[in-house]
């Protein structure tokens, strides 16, 4: 498998010692290890950080593998998150079920364009963009072609920043459930999609945290 070969070559790289494996001017190329927790510098021979005592690694171990594994898990959870209803509204005995997408469409029909926009961006645009961005970052680390390191590093920073904002929809459902418990006229209950979607957000956040942007700079240009 081509992907396997690329993956193993990208992953085995940090384990072989040598100068040109790390980017020029980097701590790693100068025989130093930057602690992933406290960012203090230690000699690359050390096993534990001298400042904070955490285990040292020149780069996050198996970064691409972990990132991709969590990404695939989040893609799997994204399917029920879109197919099942995110909330059920019961008004006077009749039940209305809304998935994420049908909820957005409903807001549009009601003319609530702002709310529709916020939910659309937070629940559809951000998660999909984020998943694609993480995949693209992993691909760039694995590929043998020259990459745009500056832009990709910015993309990674953006991915980390927007991650938590997808949680808006889950919170909206939680607040609506708490608010609308008015007698027997109307009740709202969360659907299966709310939990699945929350898991998607958590998994993509973990996935982004596993990615090591320094790998982008280690690639020879």
């Amino acid at each position, binding site marked *: 498998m081509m992907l396997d070969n690329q993956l193993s070559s990208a992953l085995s790289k940090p384990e072989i010692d040598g100068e040109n494996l790390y980017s020029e001017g980097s701590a790693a190329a100068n025989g130093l290890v930057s602690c992933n927790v406290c960012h203090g510098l230690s000699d690359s021979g050390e096993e534990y950080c001298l400042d904070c005592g955490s285990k040292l690694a020149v780069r996050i171990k198996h970064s691409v593998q972990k990132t991709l594994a969590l990404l695939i898990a989040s893609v799997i959870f994204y399917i029920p998150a879109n197919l099942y209803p995110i909330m059920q509204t019961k008004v006077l005995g009749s039940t209305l079920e809304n998935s994420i997408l049908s909820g957005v469409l409903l807001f549009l029909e009601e003319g609530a364009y702002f709310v529709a926009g916020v939910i659309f961006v937070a629940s559809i645009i951000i998660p999909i963009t984020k998943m694609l961005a993480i995949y693209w970052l992993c691909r760039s680390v694995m590929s043998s072609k020259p990459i745009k*390191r500056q832009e990709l590093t910015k993309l990674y920073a953006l991915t980390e920043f927007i991650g938590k904002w997808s949680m808006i929809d889950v919170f909206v459902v939680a607040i609506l459930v708490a*608010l*609308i418990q008015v007698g027997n006229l109307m009740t709202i209950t969360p659907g299966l999609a709310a939990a699945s979607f929350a898991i998607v957000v958590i998994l993509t956040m973990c996935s982004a945290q596993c990615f090591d942007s320094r790998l982008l700079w280690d690639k020879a240009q």
Partner: protein
Amino acid sequence: MSKKIACSGCDLLIQLPPQVGEHNKLCCPRCQHTITRGHPNALGYALSIVFSSLMALALSYNFVFIAFEVNAQSREISLIQATLVLYDQAYYFLAALVLILTLVCPLLYLLLLLRVLIPLKLGMKGQRLTYVATLIKRLVPWLMVDVFLIGVLVALIKMWSLANLSFGLSFWAYILFVLQFSYLLYLVDQFKLWRWVNDAR
């Protein structure tokens, strides 16, 4: 002592300037990752903001958050009910999620930060500060009070046409809390945090 640091974005070795001036920020020359921002009295500011956010947080969980009327029935809810109602209806995962992301993590963050800042301010040696700072670093991505506030606003816009809404004291306290908390996160970056920890050890 010539102090060097490796950029956490691209691992470039950077010679640290003696100090970062006010309104300046220290960026990695290669990947433009912002390492820290200069502030004349970050420690004092951080400490006072931690105290005032704790007060705002206490206010926002102890009074009426939103009151509303529908068909002559009125109802008042507090902030904690967003969790409790979910719990009562046996949506344990969602209840735990909301509670952890919007209350437990932010509160823990504030208390742990206090645990670092107070010994430093008093010029004492702190115990196990690296452990505390590691916990703080792990907590930071999971602080979602700002996301929760936007969620509240979206839910309220949706409810606006259905009910006669009015905001309680807790609502305004919560907005105040989120503003202060966001500024605190902006002010206390990883660089400052670990420098403080190393100073207080």
